[in-house]
């Protein structure tokens, strides 16, 4: 187990370095950050001076080395636009993204699993067909369109939910939360649905197909033959056995939700990291972009690691293999 963990951590470090290198190569093509920082009349000499001061004239390899050295000490430099340390910007923005992602994931799981179970058991009922049609919308419509539709209906037409922002937040230490105020909770509804809809349909369809498969297996037939109630068979035996792949997917999707909250955050002006990243890209704000990419890579690596370790723990077959390795 220890050898397995150490090996995975080593692999993770290599992934992080690769992401950093690729990010740096890409930054050569995003354009000139200096132009976004100065006024239109600023002379060439002044621009050159600023470029020198920011270290943009150094060779890429020197810039990269400096970046890695600082990043290893959790220092991502100063944002060109906002002119504050990137780490404190991320610390400010992370709670918004995290709360949105967790709510969206909960929405996906708490609605997705029951819908999956229902459609698995009652394959031909009209409700199942309705659920599946709804899930088709979730898969086929792009996120920004769903967001705009929800805003149009619930904010403009009905006027019951806010169209943008996070509402009132309460500060607890370094964390800001919208969970504790009415306006914060109301502001969370539309973005969470928008962000979680795709994951919900994924969970529904996954649970459904797993249920269909499990319900055909011999041990379910035996369970029924023993005269167990439908409830015990469906939930105690069938659902339990469908959950291992579902947990894996949910774990990985949580990373995806955080990473791809960009669109939802832009549509709802949700003050999270994704919105910060989009603004950074438009202004070629390299310190923010690189820090965000590293953070997302780190999240994925971390979640992968946890999922792998959970696997070892849950599934005895993997544990045996892990011990041998």
């Amino acid at each position, binding site marked *: 187990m220890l050898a397995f963990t150490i090996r995975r951590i080593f692999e993770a470090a290599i992934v992080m370095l690769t992401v950093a290198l690729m990010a740096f190569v890409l930054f050569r093509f995003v354009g000139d950050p200096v132009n*976004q920082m100065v006024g239109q009349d600023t002379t060439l000499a002044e621009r050159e001076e600023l470029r020198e001061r920011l270290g943009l004239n150094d060779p890429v390899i020197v810039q990269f080395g400096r970046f890695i050295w600082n990043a290893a000490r959790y220092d991502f430099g100063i944002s060109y636009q906002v002119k504050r340390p990137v780490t404190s910007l991320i610390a400010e923005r992370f709670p918004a993204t995290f709360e949105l992602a967790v709510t969206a994931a909960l929405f996906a799981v708490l609605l997705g699993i029951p819908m999956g179970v229902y459609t698995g058991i009652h394959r031909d009922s009209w409700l199942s067909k309705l659920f599946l049609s709804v899930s088709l919308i979730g898969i086929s419509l792009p996120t920004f369109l769903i967001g705009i539709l929800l805003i149009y209906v619930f904010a403009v037409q009905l006027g019951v939910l806010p169209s943008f922002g996070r509402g009132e937040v309460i500060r607890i230490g370094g964390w800001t939360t919208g969970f504790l105020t009415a306006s914060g909770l109301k502001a969370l509804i539309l973005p969470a649905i928008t962000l979680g809809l795709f994951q919900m349909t994924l969970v529904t369809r996954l649970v459904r197909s797993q249920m269909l498969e499990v319900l055909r297996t011999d041990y379910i037939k035996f369970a029924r033959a023993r005269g167990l109630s439908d409830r015990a068979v469906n939930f105690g035996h069938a659902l339990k056995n469908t959950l291992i792949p579902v947990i894996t997917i949910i774990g990985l999707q949580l990373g995806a939700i955080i990473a791809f909250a960009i669109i939802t955050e832009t549509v709802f002006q949700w003050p999270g990291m994704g919105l910060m990243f989009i603004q950074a890209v438009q202004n070629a704000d390299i310190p923010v972009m690189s820090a965000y990419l590293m953070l997302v890579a780190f999240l994925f690596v971390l979640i992968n690691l946890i999922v792998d370790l959970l696997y070892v723990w849950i599934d005895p077959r993997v544990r045996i293999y892990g011990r041998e390795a």
Partner: protein
Amino acid sequence: MKRSVISVAAAIAVAMLALPVEAKTFRFAFQGDLNALDPYALNETFTLGTLGNAMEGLVTRDKDLKIIPALAERWEIVEPTRWRFHLRKGVKFHNGEDFTADDVLFSLDRALSPESNIRTRFAAKLRAEKVDSHTVDFVLAVPNPILHAEWDSWFMMSKSWAEANGATKVQTKSNQLSPFALKANGTGPFMVENHEPGVRTTFKVNPNWWGKPQHNLTNVVFQTIKSDATRVAALLSGEVDMIDPVPVQDIPRVKASAGTDVLTGPELRTIFLNMDQVRDELLYSDVKGKNPFKDARVRKAVYQAIDIDAIQKRIMRGNATPSALLIYPPLFSRAAEFQRHPYDPAAAKKLLAEAGYPNGFALEMDCPNDRYVNDEAICQATVAMLARIGVNVKLNAMSKARYFDKAGAPQKYDSSFNMAGWTASSLDGLNILRSIAGCRDADGKGATFNFGGYCNPVVDELASAIAVENDVQKRDDMLAKAFRIIHDEVGMIPLHQQALSWGVSKKVSMAQRADNRILFYWVRMQ
């Protein structure tokens, strides 16, 4: 009966007492962020414009952009190179300190420091001398009739406050901002209450302001809403009272809605096309060994091939003002003398044939897609219009960060044909001659932002004479002469002033100034 009369009277009395202190909160949303609150850190219209509600300069501009007194009550030119400013007495900063000449001297030092981004607002070798506690002299190396033209956004800072708060420098060594970035201490009619960068900034009224307020607000809330659709939705649903901008395609919808309206008007910025006239062989073209744009007939052919009315009607949906000048016409007294070269594809074809390109030629055009209103669509239309006279253009649309890198000085003007926009920041024609229509070399020395490199030494000589001419009449004559040369030779192709479009709730009345600053000291709410 008697009791009800008393209670009505009491209610009226309460209402009358309550009226002056009734909270009126103006909420507005802009597409970009209010970045650093340090007024010398970032030279950006929106940030400086919004800060202008909380901070003030020696001068300011009225609703028609005319320079009027602010923290200086009056000023005079005592010698051609010495300007005397008499400061307003009894002005206090938000923290209660008095505003004096020492603050002006400190503000000038700070604004001229190497880390400052507003250094371009000051004439070369400018010095300030304190005459007494409320009089300051500015001493110039050479005469400059527009010394104070950009001082409406050079905001006065308090010397003692900056020293006490460690904000004497714009940036520390590590490029980090001074503590001022998150606070602000000005003299203006509003005070910054709370600033969460990228999320929300709140202002409250300054009860000790020296002037007579024209607004009736108590609080102001600013929020960024980046997505166009969401910004419009926030206005329609009444969550905000004003948005900037309303996307062109949403203007009818906002107008049709019962509670909202759109304020439109021309913006200072002129959109125009640049043609490379520096290189001996045009880049990205099928013409080898020569550069067709060095021939004024080819440039004029391109000009006359562009159907500006079609761009104005179809692409801008009426929200643009076609222009023959590179400067916003109301800023130049003789603007009426200039008319566009007429749209005439047949004449354009003839000009091309005369210049030796009867079958046209091919080239590439660079265009930003996130900088100006409908920028990419205008370029696409241009491409289609030029195809009709045989000039085949391949369009490269890109983000502004990449565009200014490629077409501008950093990549040595790696572009043959491109679209740009420019605002004369001093609101004066000289800025046009110096920055976008003067000569430059291949590296950008000279008029750095002249992306096409048009060059006529006569125009440069006129610019040098205009710079030191204090006589308005003579100055305007020379400006007209220079603009006439650029127009006749088609140094660049002006297209239009794009329109400002602000969405406002019908509860709000406010002034819209062509420089697109959101000045809530002119906002009145029902």
